[in-house]
């Protein structure tokens, strides 16, 4: 069998796990990733010990075919851990780093890590040609776009002078976003989801003691993890999302079983059910149900909930359901007017710091990533009709402007959002990795040049 050469744009958790699977199967792999360390992308790079995994250790194995791998790794590395415990994300970063080391050993000279970014990629008759920010080109049998989560959606009501001010942070993951200038600063977080929870914990860890105001339209905090229940199988009678929701409601009010087991049981099915909906139903789901699905499905670790509860109880942290109006630059910070939901009232908060904690930008055409822009420009990638993500086939292949799935361009992980509803967490990613690795070993193998030798450009 000829050796396949697969290029992977992005060396976070999804890119690394795919590389590992491909190397195990004998393929040649080039990861293009500017970070020196593979595995710990944005999600697992945080060094704050209060930032825990959002799932218990027993569910976090990197390998679909070896569910206890992470628990064994923890025990072998001096920290035996119960499957129900929530481990620091930085520890998971170390786990992924050890998998990167293993991938290097597995791959030998079949594996290469280029410290740059893919800027564009073009399908050709015999290979996909890839260009990087380092000015290099390389050719591969296929390219997998594994660039992780998008930056937070841009907050539109931010005038230029506010955006340029030192008090405004467009992402909670920017350097120093959660390092307050003075401990007493009033901080406003635009968003109340898991990113906002992370920002609160980061601020407190970095010595912040002042008031924090969290704002979102519905004012919904994520729910809390309770215990490691076995996910229940989804209701076999449910044929629509409406019925699914009804069965979750019933189980919750009857108090017979925890709704969490139902939601977790639906994780696999939600993607199939989503794909089966027509466009109108998908729109309705996004508008009315997705925010609720997210706070029920994407839950916070109990330790995080404990910390948030303390701050809410002593009044340091305040939660407002409402619409943030146009921000205004004031002498020592930013004025944030909030139109309170359901009431004819505007609360004005003068903050020394405002952090955008909204979820990732899902409209691919609004994204600034060079590779995505080039794929969109060439028609190799097209936004899906909902403008949430791109059109992607069920095997991960990009569907181009001509409507046919590519044999050379694939997506993995968060980039598939829109085609899938659940595609950002390790349990989903490890399954995608397994299937995609099998798929990639069947792409036509035609690249003869060794990976290390750049082909001439053009």
């Amino acid at each position, binding site marked *: 069998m000829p050796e396949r050469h697969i290029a992977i744009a992005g060396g976070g958790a999804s890119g690394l796990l795919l590389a590992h699977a491909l190397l195990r199967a004998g393929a040649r792999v080039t990861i293009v990733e500017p970070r020196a360390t593979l595995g710990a992308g944005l999600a697992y790079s945080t060094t704050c010990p209060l930032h825990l995994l959002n799932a*218990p250790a027993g569910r976090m194995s990197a390998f679909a075919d070896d569910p206890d791998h992470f628990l064994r790794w923890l025990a072998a590395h001096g920290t*035996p*851990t*119960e499957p*129900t*415990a*929530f481990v620091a994300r930085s520890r998971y970063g170390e786990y992924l780093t050890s998998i990167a080391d293993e991938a290097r050993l597995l791959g030998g000279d079949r594996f290469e890590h280029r410290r740059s970014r893919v800027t564009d990629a073009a399908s050709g008759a015999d290979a996909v040609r890839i260009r990087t920010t380092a000015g290099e080109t390389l050719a591969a049998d296929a390219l997998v776009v594994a660039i992780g989560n998008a930056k937070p959606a841009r907050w539109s009501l931010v005038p230029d002078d506010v955006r340029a001010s030192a008090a405004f942070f467009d992402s909670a993951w920017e350097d120093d976003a959660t390092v307050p200038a003075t401990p007493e600063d009033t901080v406003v977080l635009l968003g109340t989801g898991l990113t906002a929870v992370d920002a609160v914990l980061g601020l407190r860890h970095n010595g912040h003691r002042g*008031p924090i105001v969290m704002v979102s339209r519905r004012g919904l*905090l994520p*729910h*809390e*993890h*309770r*215990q*490691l229940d076995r996910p229940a199988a989804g209701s076999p009678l449910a044929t629509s999302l409406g019925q699914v929701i009804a069965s979750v409601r019933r189980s*919750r009010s009857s*108090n017979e079983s925890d*709704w969490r087991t139902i939601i977790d049981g639906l994780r696999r099915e939600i993607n199939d059910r989503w794909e089966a909906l027509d466009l109108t139903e998908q729109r309705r789901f996004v508008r009315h149900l997705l925010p609720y699905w997210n706070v029920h499905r994407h839950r916070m670790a*109990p*330790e995080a*909930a*404990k910390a*948030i*509860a*303390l701050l*809410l*109880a*002593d*009044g340091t942290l*305040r939660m407002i359901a409402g619409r943030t109006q146009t921000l205004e630059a004031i002498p020592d910070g930013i004025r944030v007017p909030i139109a309170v939901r359901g009431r004819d009232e505007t609360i004005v908060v003068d903050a020394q710091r405002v952090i955008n904690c909204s979820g990732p930008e899902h409209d691919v055409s609004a994204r600034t990533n060079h590779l995505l822009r080039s794929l969109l420009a060439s028609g190799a990638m097209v936004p899906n009709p909902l403008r949430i993500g791109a059109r992607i086939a069920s095997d991960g292949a990009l569907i181009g402007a001509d409507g046919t799935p590519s044999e050379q361009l694939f997506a993995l992980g968060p980039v598939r959002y829109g085609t899938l509803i659940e595609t950002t967490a390790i349990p989903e990613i490890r399954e995608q990795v397994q299937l995609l690795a099998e798929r990639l070993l069947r792409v036509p193998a035609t690249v003869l040049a060794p990976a290390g030798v750049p082909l001439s450009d053009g």
Partner: protein
Amino acid sequence: MTTSERFGSARSVHVDAIIETIARAVATDRATTLAATLADLGASGAFDNVSLFAAPGESRYSRARLWADPAGHFAVVCMTWLPGQGSAVHDHAGRWGAELVVHGTMRETSYRLSERDARGRVRLVRERETPLHAAQIGVVLPTVDIHELRNDGPELAHTVHVYSSLVDACTMFTPGGDGWWTLAPVSLTYDA
């Protein structure tokens, strides 16, 4: 943000109103919301009436059940602690809830379960000690629900506990000399 802005002027609240408020918070199914609600109630003086609490006991702290929800969704227990009195290390049988210090100063010592052996014994890691002053809140959420509480101050302490079911059982942890703890199921009794 001052207290008066958040909660309006202090006013006395009857037990029915307290229970109704707690029930709404429990229905959100979020310990974060329950904690904030309990803190609001405490700040409004809802638990200032000492007749809600049992008289202190010489042998151990006392428990008074303020409310048992007929639908079984939650229970409210008021506890009275003499200086130095404390609980054993215990869990909460999978329940969630919140605990408010009304008077006095408590100390919460939290533990994390790290290992289990074939004989059912466990290893506990002492995670942190948190002083809880009046108006402060502790949250109970599985799996971070193993702790002990102690009246750490010179005065009588009163605490209010809301739990997500009527179950009156939990597990008590007793340290062995060898670092392993043994588990014993206990049934709680009430003094009022």
